[in-house]
């Protein structure tokens, strides 16, 4: 029988090829995919998250592990029972209208994906209407916005207002971030959460959907 410890190691080290190969072998041997997920893959990503939180891992390492996880997950998802395979929640993400600075947003998106969220990335310069419409159409639970410029921050308030006006705020939580953004600003405009950086954003998203 296939030794499965290499699956754990492969995800931890971001070795997508080995991760996929190991999963394939295991499936051929009819090992329960749920067991693969629960005993090796999720623990590996937990360890990646722990290392990132404690500054042992940097973003590139986190991203590469997240990609290995994603690759392995794509192989077992069709074989899985419902439980455990669904994303934690859907997140619609983008930078606000007028703001083209997306590196922070990209980080958050990648880390949310690695953390088990489904991410719908509207990229940059997203209008309040686009946020609202996509969240509605996709049945998202979270809208995540970033702004790097103080001049584009008002786009956050406009989006919160649009969500409120669409009567959507009871279904969707709104989280914001970016260099000039503060908790106080989040409170002021009626956003549900603010995160100081990309790693805190995943924790915040979990809290917002009650997954933590």
């Amino acid at each position, binding site marked *: 029988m296939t030794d499965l410890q290499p699956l754990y190691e492969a995800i931890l080290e971001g070795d997508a090829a080995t991760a996929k190969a190991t999963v394939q072998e295991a499936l051929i041997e009819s090992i329960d995919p749920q067991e693969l997920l629960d005993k090796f893959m999720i623990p590996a990503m937990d360890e990646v998250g722990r290392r990132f939180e404690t*500054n*042992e*891992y*940097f*973003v*590139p390492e986190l*991203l*590469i592990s997240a990609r290995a996880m994603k690759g392995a997950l794509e192989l077992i998802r069709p074989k899985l029972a419902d439980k455990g395979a669904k994303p934690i929640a859907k997140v619609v993400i983008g930078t606000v209208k*007028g703001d*083209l600075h*997306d*590196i922070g947003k*990209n*980080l958050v998106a*990648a880390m949310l994906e690695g953390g088990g969220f489904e991410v719908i990335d509207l*990229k*940059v*310069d997203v209008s309040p209407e686009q946020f609202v419409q996509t969240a509605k159409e996709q049945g998202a639970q979270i809208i995540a916005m970033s702004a790097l*410029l*103080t*001049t584009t*921050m*008002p786009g956050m308030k406009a989006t919160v207002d649009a969500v409120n006006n669409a009567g959507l705020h009871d279904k969707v939580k709104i989280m914001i971030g970016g260099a*000039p953004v503060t908790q106080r600003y989040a409170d002021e405009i009626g956003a549900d959460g603010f995160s100081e*950086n*990309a790693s805190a954003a995943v924790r915040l998203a979990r809290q917002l959907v009650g997954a933590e």
Partner: protein
Amino acid sequence: MAIGLAITNLDEFTYGKSPKPIKCGRGVEIGNGRVIPEINFTLPPIDINPETWPEVLRQYSEMITGICERAVALGSSGILVEVETLPPMTVNPSWGVEVSRLVADKLDYYYEKRQLHSAFRLTPNDTREHQRPPRMRSGMYWDGMKEFFERSGEAGADLISIESTGGKEINDIALMDADVHALVFALGIIAPRDMEFLWREIVDSCKRNNVIPAGDSACGFANTAMVLAEQRMLPRVFAALVRIASVPRSLVAFEQGAVGPSKDCAYEGPYIKAITGSPISMEGRTAACAHFSSVGNISQAVCDCWSNESVQNVRLLSGYAPTVSMEQLEYDCRLLNVASQTPEDGRKMRDWLVASDSSHDPQAYVLRPDVVMRISKTMIEEDTPYLRVRAGLRCGLAEIRSAISANQLTLPVTEMKWMDRLYRQIDSLPNDETEFIEMMLPKLADAPWIPSEYGF
């Protein structure tokens, strides 16, 4: 064709003095013996639109008045004032010109009435990145920029700078993955192509308007890496390499006719100064209001202007933040200028600034004047930006490696494994630029860029 370094003697590589000093504005001399404070300021959170415009002007007037009053009170021998516009002011150059003119008029007033020497650096935005993928050579953003450059004289600018972004769309990807090949493609291949296009335009426009083309900053490339490293998102050693890789790109502005002072946030400045002899502006501990860094003192070691990078017009206990920055910069410059009254003493001060930071962080280490000179030398022995980047990365990583061995630099344990990873990636860069391009183009087929905007 290899060129030589403008500064070949380490003893002559110090602050306040550069081989090619500049006279500008109202009686200001840069790089001619004294370090000059460069003061920057920007608006607090405010939406810019016709309705808020009077308030925008009021704030700029408040900021520049507070700054000039404080400079006069402290008996400053001269200041460099930078206005880095906000994007709407470049998209709509009439706004940018109005704000700049207001500042220039205040500087005229303080020169005439209070004998305050000053020069004015105007930094329009590179708004081309406001669309994805960016269009670099046409379209409404480029038109706005060109118009603003052309109106720089009317705007009252003495110097023009920019933090241009050609190649940033690929650099962003490189940073996320700490991917050296993508980094080299961004900074060694496409950024220099855009720099050549952009700076030819800027220099021409400056000539027509009697404005000095000052220089560019790899802010969007290397400072993004620095800030991410400061947040522990990226290894510091990688950020140090991004800094080195940005040098050949920023050098292109000078090849096209820029003469300095290089922009404050261009921490590649010491390389530019060693290579070109042009004066540079730098920022460090006094720019903590804009971003944290691990180069707070060493960044000052060979500066000609000393800056706060940028501060919003928020109220502190003493007064508005721009005025606070003005005071801090003036005292810092006073100290530097007192210390450099003999060359030996100036070097002593420089070496203390260097020693206080250089062992803490590879990003600081690669700003050591001797290290800068060695890496610069290997870079300019090459003829093309690609080969210069490759040579700089090789030399830089070797410098870092031997500094660690010699206990001149400590690296966190978590970064040690990166040394080998980065070495392998650098080592696999081909000799031939065409080969490299052909290797990279397919890999970047899905990336958000338009190859033809870079002449491909």
